[in-house]
């Protein structure tokens, strides 16, 4: 053992020869005393005082654990311990030995060594002195972490740390080379490596496994009772018994008498044995037939469980069996989501039917439902859809109205944006995107004249006055006033005279528009005047008398609407402020009102007083068109979300009736399918009719009777859906106009045709 350790020792310096330069000289010295081996570097490093530790092999030398010595010590100690146990003071002896064991793990091993040396183990022993070599006392050694030393020895000299703290590599090499590496422990006080002896290792093992440190100690020695179990002749104590142990207790007597009294009085009654068999009686003996069902009227009795249908049968009709996909879908669903809690299956026989797996679960769920679920009476609404449909008079009774297509006016090569009929009803003018105005004879569908205007005609309007023959057309940023010279020659001539009678004033007033006379070439085509604006014109409309002309410009700001006076060639902008984009304007047929339709509202202005009279709210998203009833009390608005709104001006500013004229919307009620926009609306000047043209290519003619009696509300009945126009570029009907005298309606479409329905 010692030899092997020596080999280890010698191997160690060979690893690091340079560091221990000073050692080799001194190496021979410690050889006779192997225990000194490890202190040697310390002592040498301190310098001269190696003798002390060397020479005194008493206390200090014992500190260094030396395998050979300590084994002897232990043995001796054990022997002594046994002796002690055998002797009378066995108890204390045992203590000592245990003390030794405790100290064994620590450097305090030296006590044992010392005792072995001296023979009297207790003489030197003082458990207080833990480590005599290092006198720093009980301070954390981290405090010395930054110093080269770890403490001071008895003489006050520094105890230096080993010169080089070993790094990981050294440790690893040690681990590999040194077979005793596992039993090497570092002494924190000196920083030295300690090598445990076999005995020490065995001791550690014993302590680890919870045994006594002393091998010789027998924990199962027979116990000696203090009191023997035998009955002796003499008592343990010889005290005579008290008197009270012979006398009945008064307190108890009182208690008993109280109980007796209570029993007498019947206060305490013996517990009756409970009857295990339950007794039942006729609970409904006095039954009140008129008893309220339930406690109060709010009570909702629990609904009964649903009865099984065919699908639940063990032998169901084949239609109820699930296909494979349905089966998979069923299995993927959560049990709570399933429509049926069970899987319909067909069993060949009753014996083959297995137990239903969720049976108890279902009962439990029912129980939970009964006391945890809020209940509610659900009123099932039974509405007959027939009742929802309003009762309307038959359209046959509301005749006349246009019922079928009579004529088609072909000629335009592009979509026909606008239409207008002459006040006499003989001529028709249309403006198209192909840059021309066409004049048609209504009765024959003959194109009487074509006027190229060199731009898209946005709007066209025939002067309503029968005394003049004038047509206003909005082309790009100008309004053209034409004299088509159709019909009565006299009228045409007088119109020309009227226009030429204008004498320009001396100082031309500031005007928002320029009035230009037409050139000679243009006059031949029919053009008389040109009113130029800076902005594109979207709409032009005449006042009922035919002198005033309202124009809508596509601009921002307050100059969207201009009013021109033809006879004096004057223009004015009536508004100082704008209220959104103006869509349409219309003159009131009887009173000096101007209706201006902006995107969300329709405003009614009094032109003479120059004030806002009314503001109508059509409740639709985007007003597209506007028409005023010839009597002047009713207004209709068409909107791009396919609504037609009827206002009764006398009634309120809210719509009197809203008609949803989209044909598609009734078939596809979901909002995904966009509704077709209404492009134009028109009133018939004589008959109680109004029409609307929409993008789905249909013209819907409605009967709109307005009564003179103020108490009677107008009667609105859709009477006919007229179809004829083909859809091009998702556009259908662009304009609708009624014939002034006949119940006929003209419509212009995106397919470049104009159609007459009679």
């Amino acid at each position: 053992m010692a030899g092997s350790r020596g080999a280890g020792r010698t191997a160690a310096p060979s690893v690091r020869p340079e560091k221990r330069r000073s050692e080799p000289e001194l190496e021979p010295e410690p050889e006779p005393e192997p225990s000194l081996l490890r202190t040697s570097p310390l002592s040498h490093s301190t310098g001269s005082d190696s003798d002390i530790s060397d020479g005194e092999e008493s206390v200090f030398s014992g500190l260094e654990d030396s395998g050979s010595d300590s084994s002897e010590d232990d043995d001796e100690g054990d022997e002594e311990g046994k002796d002690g146990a055998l002797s009378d003071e066995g108890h204390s002896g045992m203590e000592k030995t245990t003390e030794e064991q405790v100290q064994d793990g620590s450097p305090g091993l030296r006590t044992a060594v010392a005792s072995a040396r001296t023979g009297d183990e207790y003489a030197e022993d003082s458990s207080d002195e833990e480590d005599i070599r290092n006198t720093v006392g009980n301070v954390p050694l981290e405090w010395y972490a930054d110093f080269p030393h770890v403490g001071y020895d008895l003489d006050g000299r520094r105890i230096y740390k080993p010169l080089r703290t070993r790094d990981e590599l050294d440790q690893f090499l040690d681990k590999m080379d040194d077979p005793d590496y596992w039993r090497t422990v570092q002494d924190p006080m000196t920083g030295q490596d300690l090598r445990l002896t076999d005995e020490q290792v065995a001791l550690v093992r014993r302590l680890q496994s919870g045994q006594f440190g002393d091998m010789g100690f027998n924990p199962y020695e027979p116990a000696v009772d203090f009191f023997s179990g035998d009955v002796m002749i003499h008592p343990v104590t010889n005290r005579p018994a008290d008197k009270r142990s012979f006398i009945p207790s008064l307190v108890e007597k009182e208690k008993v008498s109280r109980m007796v009294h209570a029993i007498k009085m019947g206060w305490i009654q013996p517990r009756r044995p409970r009857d295990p068999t339950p007794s039942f009686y006729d609970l409904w003996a006095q039954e009140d037939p008129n008893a309220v069902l339930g406690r109060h009227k709010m009570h909702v009795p629990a609904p009964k469980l649903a009865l099984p249908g065919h699908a639940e049968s063990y032998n169901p009709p084949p239609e109820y069996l699930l296909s494979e996909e349905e089966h998979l879908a069923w299995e993927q669903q959560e049990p709570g989501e399933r429509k049926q809690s069970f899987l319909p299956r067909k069993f060949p026989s009753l014996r083959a039917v297995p137990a239903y797996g969720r049976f108890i679960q279902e009962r439990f769920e029912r129980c939970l439902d009964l006391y945890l679920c809020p209940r509610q009476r659900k009123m099932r609404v039974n509405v007959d859809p027939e009742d929802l449909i309003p009762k309307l008079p038959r359209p046959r009774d509301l005749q006349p109205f246009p019922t079928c297509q009579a004529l088609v006016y072909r000629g335009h090569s592009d979509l026909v944006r606008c239409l207008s009929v002459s006040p006499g009803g003989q001529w028709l003018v249309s403006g198209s995107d192909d840059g021309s105005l066409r004049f048609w004879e209504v009765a024959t569908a003959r194109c009487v004249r074509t006027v190229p205007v060199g731009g898209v005609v946005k709007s066209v309007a025939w002067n309503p006055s029968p005394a003049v023959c004038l047509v206003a057309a909005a082309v790009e940023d100008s309004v053209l006033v034409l004299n088509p010279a159709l019909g009565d020659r006299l009228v045409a001539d007088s119109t020309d005279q009227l226009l030429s009678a204008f004498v320009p004033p001396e100082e031309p007033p500031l005007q928002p528009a320029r009035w230009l006379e037409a050139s000679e070439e243009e006059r031949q085509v029919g053009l008389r005047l040109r009113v130029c604006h800076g902005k594109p014109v979207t709409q032009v409309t005449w006042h009922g008398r035919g002198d005033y002309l309202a124009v809508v410009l596509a601009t921002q700001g307050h100059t969207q609407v201009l009013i021109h006076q033809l006879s004096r060639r004057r223009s004015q902008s009536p508004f100082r402020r704008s209220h959104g984009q103006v869509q349409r304007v219309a003159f009131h047929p009887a009173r000096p009102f101007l209706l201006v339709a902006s995107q969300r509202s329709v405003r009614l202005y009094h032109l003479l007083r120059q004030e806002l009279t009314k503001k109508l709210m059509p409740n639709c998203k985007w007003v597209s068109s506007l028409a005023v009833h010839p009597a002047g009390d009713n207004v209709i608005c068409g909107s791009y979300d396919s609504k037609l709104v009827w206002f009764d001006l006398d009634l309120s500013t809210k719509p009197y009736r809203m008609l949803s004229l989209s044909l598609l919307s009734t078939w596809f009620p979901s909002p995904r399918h966009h509704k077709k926009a209404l492009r134009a609306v028109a009133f018939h000047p004589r008959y109680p009719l109004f029409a609307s043209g929409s993008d789905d290519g249909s013209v819907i003619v409605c009967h709109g009777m307005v009564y003179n009696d103020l108490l009677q509300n107008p009667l609105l009945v859709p009477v006919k859906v007229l179809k004829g126009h083909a859809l091009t570029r998702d556009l259908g009907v662009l304009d609708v106009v009624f014939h002034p005298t006949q119940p006929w309606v003209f419509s212009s479409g995106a397919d470049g045709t104009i159609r007459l329905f009679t």
Partner: protein
Amino acid sequence: MHIHKLKKKIQKKKESKYIKKKSILKKLCLTYDDFNKICIYKGIYPRDHKQIEAKYRSKFNKDICYTRKDFKNIKGEPIINTLREIKTYYKKYKKRKQRCGTNKEECKNIIKGLPQFKLDHIIKERHPNLSQAVGQLNDALTAIVAYSLLPSDEKIGIKNDSIQKCMQLKNIFHYYVYKTNKITKAFITVKGYYLQAQILQQNVTWLIPHIFTPYYDTSINFKIITTFIEYYTCLLNYVLFKLFKIDDLSYPPEQNIELKNEKLGHIAYDQTYFVDLAKVANNTKGCDSSGNNNENNNTMLLNAANFVVNDEASDETEQNLHIKVYTKAEAAEDIATENVVTQGIEEKSVKKKKKKKKNTTSNEKSNEKNNDTSNDKGNDTSNDKSNDKSNDKISSTPTTVIKHYINEDDNNKLKNLFKNFIFYIHNDMPFDVLSIIILSCGGKIGWKSKYSPYNYKNKAITHEITETEIRGCEENFICERDRIQPQYVFDCLNRKEILYCFNYKVNKQLPVHLSPFIDDENYKDFVKTEEYTISKMLSTNYEQRNDNNNNNNNNNTNKMEMGQTDEKGIIKTDMTTKVQSDDEFDDITLVKCRNAALENQKQIEKEDEKDDVQSQKNSQNEPQTGDMTKTDNINDQNLKLGNLKKQKKHNELQRKKMLMSKKKRKLYNRIENAEKRQKQKIQKWINKTSKQKNNKKKKT
């Protein structure tokens, strides 16, 4: 009072219509579990938050709320006190147990004193009328039947005594139901056997599960189920008591221990088996002998007679006596038909027999041993007095205030459905359910046991219920019996007539088993209309098919009848000519189905799209009519005309729709869509059936 205080008071009053669960617990010092218990007993359920006014709803946010009326109702409940007492009792018990230590005797004594509560007042409060209580028995019965099959496990809250109670109650109820012939419908499902009985004009439906191995799902709180069971057992006890009283039976009925040990369930309560027990050996001998003697006689008579051969003579005498008694006592029930009279007599005789047993057990024994009628007479005379006495007692005690009208007429047919039949139930069949149904319908049963009134080899047995082929037939008469599958019994009951056994023979492909509950209100309420129509269609369809099969079995004798029954004009001629081939017939039924569906739809929708339907009918007729070529042009024209008309109608509708208000239009569209969906679903279903038909054809 200051105005602000007044306002607050009013506010509080308004808010106080509802109350939080937490505050109830706080006010009544109840634990959560106790409160749940009370809710279960009293049938109190929480309220929906939507019912609360939106103003005050935030106060009840995320808490279960009850009405204040419920709270008041709970507040005065004597059960709460008992629950509290129980709580203190447990505390005491705990303390005492610590002190007593090992003295178990004392601990047990304490337990015996545990306060118990009664639920009768709650039952009376929840169900002021008997019929109402009977109407609410569905849940109770199903739960009790399920609970009786659980194994006892006190740890997870399944109480042993509750299970015993449930078992007993289940058997007593089954006994009552078949004894008074109350079963009306039965249905084998994947979940178990549904039985329906009509008691006091209330339909009571319950579910007997297939035998299952019990399992403990951790998500199931058996304590809650046990609490429910406590209430249900109490309710059923009281209801049964009253029902037994109405039918002049004594409650609880006595149970024969030997039969009980045989696990015969409800039959253990049956007095007839009770009495016959000792005679079984005798009886079988007698049967055999009588069977030998009367072989030449009508077997039917024998069947009817041999069951109580020994009692026949005595019964006659008893009947006479009873009629006398009856006139004397002038019982409150109005009994019009003879059947009812006899039934009453039967019941009374049963009662009497019991009394007999009580009074003169020794006599009875001797009586049973000797089959002398004279002895019986003597007994009867002795019993007569006691009977009179009892009757007097009944008449003297104030009878029920309300006479419960017992609807006998409907049941009469069912009661005698299996009157002449004796079924032998094999061991592997569900004995419980089958015996209830058969006995309820007036049949008789035999099974493999020494207590069975009929041996397997008894000649009187007419049917055997089994699903397995029995190989070697030793004797002729056994082979001659009808071996049927159990579905036969169910189908007979649901159809209310005796069906031909041919389709139900062992090893035969069974006809489909259809639910008898389609017409029930309860079913209609829960199922969407289209499904209801489909199932309705289906049932009529299959019934017709069955009829047809039957007719075929009868060598097509009643073709004419069929024609009459199936008159719907269109297919009448086809029916009579093409009945022979099955496939064609299927097609016809299919078409009929469709028509029926459309008719049904029409009824539901109440739409008068007559031409629409007509055109559809035309289109359906096309494949049917063989002379397509001739009527082709006409049909085309018809179609065109129809289309035009349709178009016109559509336009008209559209025109009208334009004037509808937004709200109405939305509603209308919703209804329209729902109808469309219904139609689609029915169409889908029809497609499915036709596909199956085609597949079958291809296979053949």
